[in-house]
């Protein structure tokens, strides 16, 4: 397995690069962007499991993000729970919401599924906005604290320092990536991809559609829940406006930009789009126009996203056998 070795080496290089990044780059603003992009990596990885690997197009991801953020914020600010408990509960609750959306989605395909997930985002947005006694409505929740420092003897990690918070979000992103890598290279991954390719054929081969589709919905939402919690405790303020359909679309764009249905694509997509949007700020109001044009160019010239583009180039170079990598490099 020549290519497998190379991908694993590439993963290792990227990982080491990410770990060293805050040591080399001391600029707080760039670190801030890096933290946000790791949070988005969690979001895109979760959505990619659903959209890229299982073929269930969903625009509901921002709602799970919001559920994670709100659960974590309410638990810590209103009820005084510890951050570590809160992130755990946020993940579970968000995963449960994923199951709730998954059940009706089992019956729906294509545009109908997309519409029901859009409905879900709107419902959750209204809930955040109007359940005043719990979510404080449009005012949002303020004063969400950084996670408490971890102390090991005289040593302690203070998460209010951006470097350290970056390591916290990186830890979750890497954990998520390892989990996805294991899933995709297992029998479960094969089943998910079979459902994406042809669900009727998959069912005929004895793949339990209900179980695997729900698994994808639940896991995707769980990832978003963790991301939501990390987001809330970093930004320290959340309001319903952060979790709208526009945010869902933004996450989906990142997935497509990086390459749907590949493991590395969403990671690259999330980092690239987050940094791109920040670096285009000097263009002021023309920023989004340039961003839009770039997106169109990607779709036209690299329909498989950045990752698809790279893989095409690589496989063209070792053109020996037509054994295209399917489960993503």
């Amino acid at each position, binding site marked *: 397995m020549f290519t497998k070795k190379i991908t694993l080496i590439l993963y290792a290089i990227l990982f080491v690069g990410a770990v060293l990044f805050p040591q080399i780059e001391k600029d707080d603003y760039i670190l801030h962007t890096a933290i946000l992009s790791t949070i988005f990596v969690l979001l895109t990885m979760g959505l990619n499991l659903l959209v890229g690997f299982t073929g269930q197009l969903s625009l509901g991801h921002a709602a799970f993000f919001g559920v994670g953020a709100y659960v974590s914020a309410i638990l810590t600010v209103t009820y005084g729970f510890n951050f570590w408990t809160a992130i755990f509960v946020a993940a579970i609750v968000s995963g449960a919401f994923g199951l709730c959306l998954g059940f009706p989605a089992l019956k729906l395909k294509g545009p109908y599924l997309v519409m029901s997930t859009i409905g879900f985002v709107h419902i959750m947005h209204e809930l955040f906005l109007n359940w005043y006694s719990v979510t404080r409505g449009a005012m949002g929740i303020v004063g969400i604290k950084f996670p408490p420092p971890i102390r090991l003897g005289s040593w302690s990690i203070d998460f209010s320092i951006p470097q350290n918070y970056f390591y916290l979000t990186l830890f979750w992103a890497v954990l998520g990536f390892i989990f996805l890598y294991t899933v995709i290279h297992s029998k479960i991954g094969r089943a998910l991809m079979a459902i994406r390719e042809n669900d009727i054929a998959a069912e005929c*081969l004895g793949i339990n559609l209900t179980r695997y589709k729900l698994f994808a919905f639940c896991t995707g939402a769980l990832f978003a829940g963790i991301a939501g919690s990390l987001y809330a405790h970093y930004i320290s303020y959340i309001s319903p406006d952060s979790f709208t359909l526009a945010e869902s679309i933004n996450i989906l764009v990142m997935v497509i930009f990086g390459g749907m249905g590949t493991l590395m694509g969403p990671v690259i997509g999330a980092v690239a789009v987050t940094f791109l949007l920040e670096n285009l700020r000097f263009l002021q109001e023309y920023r989004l126009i340039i961003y839009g044009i770039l997106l169109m160019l990607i779709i036209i010239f690299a329909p498989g996203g950045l990752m698809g583009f790279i893989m095409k180039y690589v496989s063209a170079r070792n053109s020996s056998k037509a054994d295209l990598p399917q489960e993503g490099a």
Partner: protein
Amino acid sequence: MLKVENINVYYERIHALKNLSLEVKQGEIVTILGANGAGKTTTLNSIIGVTRAKSGKISFQGIDITTADPSKIVEMGLAISPEGRKIFPKMTVYENLEMGAYVLNSPQRIHDNIMRAFNYFPVLRERSGQISSTLSGGEQQMLAIARALMANPKLLLLDEPSLGLAPLLVKDIFRIVKEINKDGVTVMLVEQNAKQALQIAHRGYVIETGRVFLEGSREELINDKRIIDAYLGGK
């Protein structure tokens, strides 16, 4: 081996199968003939559990599978090569075959089954690393049958394997189906190509508008005037 008793299937308000009964015995090739929309595919789909019968009973080796989950049914030894092939287009031939063995757990048996599939269909061995959407129609059909065989079925359901294929290829595929049957797999063959199907089948059913219109042995069907007129092109 397989017994379908008085099943009724509805699509919304359309009554697709009306009190349909049929039986497949161990070792047979049974063909189901009929025109478009007669209910052939619906019959297969109800057996495998993708569509549900509203009433009636389906049993496989004495066990009631009327309401069983498709995944359970496949594990019991029923496999289907669905209509229109339905291969996984972006996977390689080899990966498609691996998917067919989804209910098996032993890597050794999966490997053995893949080798067996390659023996039946040597062209798949040559194409094993190829993305399956790039196969020709006939090769895709072979892949669909080979994939269904991967689960070690006792009863193999084939839904229109001749669909859209050149006559020469149809002959080839039917010859292999006969070979598979000789090796101990019972076959239920749904076909529109009555001429070819009756050449390899032991018995047959003719379905018309959701009902069994006629049943009999191969000889009976081949010599039946109504069959000759309606399905064998008259004489």
